[in-house]
């Protein structure tokens, strides 16, 4: 290594490090890339970081932050050092994710039909009935092949001992896949010399896979290319870049609710310059309750009036189906391992993070007694909203969350504070460890597909555990490295 000083105070004592072994140096799957980056001079680093940033600004890879006045979109924060993972480990994760999505779909279909799992006593019926995202309007619906969730974004984290856990399932409108794709494109374009043929798994066929998954849902396709449309809330949504990106990559239409209407035949149409045109499949990136003002929120301007009627009559396919949010509920999440055992007769390959449900009096008492060491999460918020990290919270915050739990125990759950693994980030002339998570994307159509790797999010501030890009988090290109 020419510039060993880059590593002089790299400390891996905060937890498991993805790429550096505290006793043996670089982990085998990280050796080549870290070796290459370690030979860069400080000047080379400076130019590379500047080039990366200006390319991101020029190509307009952005995400939106609310409440910043005029600056609607911000440059996407991509950290230059890739995060690596060994293929041998990845293959197990991939199997675990396929197993999980399969079970989630069986669970969803069961919950909206006979609820056998409830009658078998594996999930309390009361939890389902009181879940905010269990939608009565979906009971008895029959989506093609009984598949409700075609796209899953699963949040994976690694604890101190190296175990990978599923932290959350995102089934309503999982986002981030465009950034995963753009990260690789940017890295390959700007730093081709970091790549070696056959070393890492490519990830660029996701748009084709997604299109195939969606097209297979079309109600009537007599050899013609079905009309697939991405339904976006519009340009002010934080994930608008992704909606436009996916539509462009798939050659699909990008529509807003106001572009569409349900016709007298209950078909869904979009308003084109040549008159109305029928839509076969909607890849919706609008939350459940905004989808149809006729059934859900009457004040929604984002949805399409009559859409649920059209969907229930099989006139249009919707991915993910309405109603999938019930398994995003963090209390229902705790029962996914049970669902895997119940429907598939298998042990879960990827464990859940141990969870205490305030719904049960004994578990609630445990949570209330151990608040300073736990992470408390509301059942139905996303993006880390309402979450309280015990070890970092003030007394007042703890008292406040205790009161909220007592008032509405059903809506809270708690987990131990995980150490979250770290990966190296280059900062001011040296490498520093920063906490990361991983969001792979899983598709279920005629078969199952997992993106090789996924989107790695990184908390750029020292010691921070918050990886959300809206709160100062960054991202990394994620490499699944062939290790045999």
């Amino acid at each position, binding site marked *: 290594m020419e510039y060993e000083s880059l590593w002089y105070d790299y400390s891996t004592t905060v937890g498991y490090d993805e790429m550096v072994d505290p006793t043996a140096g670089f982990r085998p799957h990280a050796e080549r890339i870290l070796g290459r980056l370690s030979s860069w001079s400080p000047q080379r680093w400076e130019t590379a970081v500047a080039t990366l940033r200006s390319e991101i600004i*020029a190509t307009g890879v952005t995400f939106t932050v609310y409440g910043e006045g005029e600056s609607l*979109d911000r440059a996407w924060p991509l950290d230059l050092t890739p995060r690596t993972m060994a293929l041998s480990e990845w293959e197990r994760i991939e199997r675990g994710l396929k197993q999980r999505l399969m079970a989630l779909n069986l669970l969803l279909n069961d919950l909206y039909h006979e609820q056998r799992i409830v009658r078998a006593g594996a999930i309390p019926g009361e939890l389902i009935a009181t879940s905010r995202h269990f939608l009565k309007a979906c009971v008895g619906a029959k989506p093609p092949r009984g598949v409700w969730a075609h796209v899953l974004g699963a949040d994976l984290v690694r604890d101190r001992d190296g175990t990978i856990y599923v932290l959350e399932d995102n089934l309503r409108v999982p986002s981030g896949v465009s950034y995963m794709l753009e990260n690789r494109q940017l890295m390959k374009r700007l730093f081709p010399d970091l790549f070696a043929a056959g070393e890492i798994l490519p990830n660029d066929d996701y748009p084709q896979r997604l299109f195939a998954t969606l097209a297979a849902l079309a109600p009537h396709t007599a050899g013609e290319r079905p009309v697939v449309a991405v339904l976006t809330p519009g340009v002010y949504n934080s994930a608008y870049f992704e909606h*436009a990106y996916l539509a462009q990559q798939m050659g699909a*239409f990008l529509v807003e609710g106001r*572009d569409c209407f349900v016709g007298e035949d209950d078909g869904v149409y979009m*308003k084109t*310059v*040549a008159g*109305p045109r029928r839509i076969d499949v909607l890849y919706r990136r609008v939350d459940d309750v905004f989808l149809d003002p006729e059934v859900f929120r009457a004040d929604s301007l984002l949805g399409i009036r009559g859409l649920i009627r059209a969907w229930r009559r099989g006139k249009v396919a919707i991915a993910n189906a309405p109603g999938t949010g019930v398994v995003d509920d963090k209390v229902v999440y705790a029962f996914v391992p049970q669902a895997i055992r119940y429907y598939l007769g298998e042990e879960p390959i990827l464990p859940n993070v141990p969870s205490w449900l305030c719904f049960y009096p004994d578990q609630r008492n445990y949570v209330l007694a151990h608040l300073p060491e736990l992470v408390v999460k509301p059942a139905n918020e996303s993006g880390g909203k309402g979450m309280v990290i015990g070890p970092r919270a003030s007394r007042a915050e703890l008292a406040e969350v205790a009161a909220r739990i007592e008032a509405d125990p059903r809506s809270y759950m708690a987990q131990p504070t995980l150490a979250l693994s770290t990966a190296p980030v280059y900062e001011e002339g040296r490498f520093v460890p920063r906490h990361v998570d991983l969001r792979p994307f899983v598709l279920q159509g005629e078969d199952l597909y997992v993106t090789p790797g996924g989107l790695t999010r990184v908390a750029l501030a020292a010691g921070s555990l918050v990886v959300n890009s809206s709160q100062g988090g960054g991202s990394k290109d994620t490499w699944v490295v062939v290790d045999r």
Partner: protein
Amino acid sequence: MLARVAEQLFWAARYLERCENTARLLLAVGDALRDAPPGATVDWGALVAVIGLEEVFAASHRERQEEAVVRFLVAETDNPSALVRAVAQARENARTVRDVLASEVWTRINRLYHLVREGAESAQRDAGARSQWLSEVIERLDAIQGGMANGTMHDAAYVFWRLGVVVERGDMTTRALDLNAAVEPQGDPLAVAALRSRLWVATLRALSALEAYRRHVGVEVDGKAVCAFLLGERRFPRAEAFLVEEALELVSSLPRSEPVVGTVQQWRRVVERIREGLPDSPAEMHTLLDRLQVRVAAVSDAIGTRFFGGGWG
């Protein structure tokens, strides 16, 4: 093609073309005014009048000097056609339809947006920096049009984009021809005559027509001949006669376009009459240019009603 997307493309193109027109006018006319012969007094406010923004300008300005006019056309927040705002608007329109734009076109629009924002301030302070900056802005705009013409399908999306360009340009050509009437130079008759001739040159330069004019009409720059060229020359891409033919072709290629074709035909009839002969008096000329502007605006309205409007049942 979604109606909303068609509308966004049409307006993105109009805003970009407006930027190009403003940049070209500022560059060409600015040179002519700064270089006015001794004995003639000039009114920079004429630049604003030519673009049709006199009322917006007068609402917040009593000064009509170079500094105020340049700021107004480059960066003033009250002026929706100011370069900085028009580019931002075009980028926002493009962003909402970025799924149908070629990535390289989007990237160029985005780069232009950053160039305009970053250069606007020094362009106001320093006339030299301004010339350079305006030339670069024009070059980038041409690169965007090139990307559209050469790097994308010439499908409905392209047709609506081109219609935006043609309509905006059709409007601007008539306005640039009104420059001499707007400036009304005062003072010593000889100096005024010299300045008038310079302003005709500026009109030609603003429409990048000076060289074409010299080659095809003559070295002498004469007002009436300039008007005849920029209105009636079918082979020059910023002349009305060229634009109206392109508009007709574009509109005819769209579905359900009969009513719009009708309004383009009306525009074309005015142009045809002009090709037969121009009036001698400046007042009559001014009226004629106004009539053309009304026809162009009618085409824009008809496009909006027919394709962006509704009637979906």
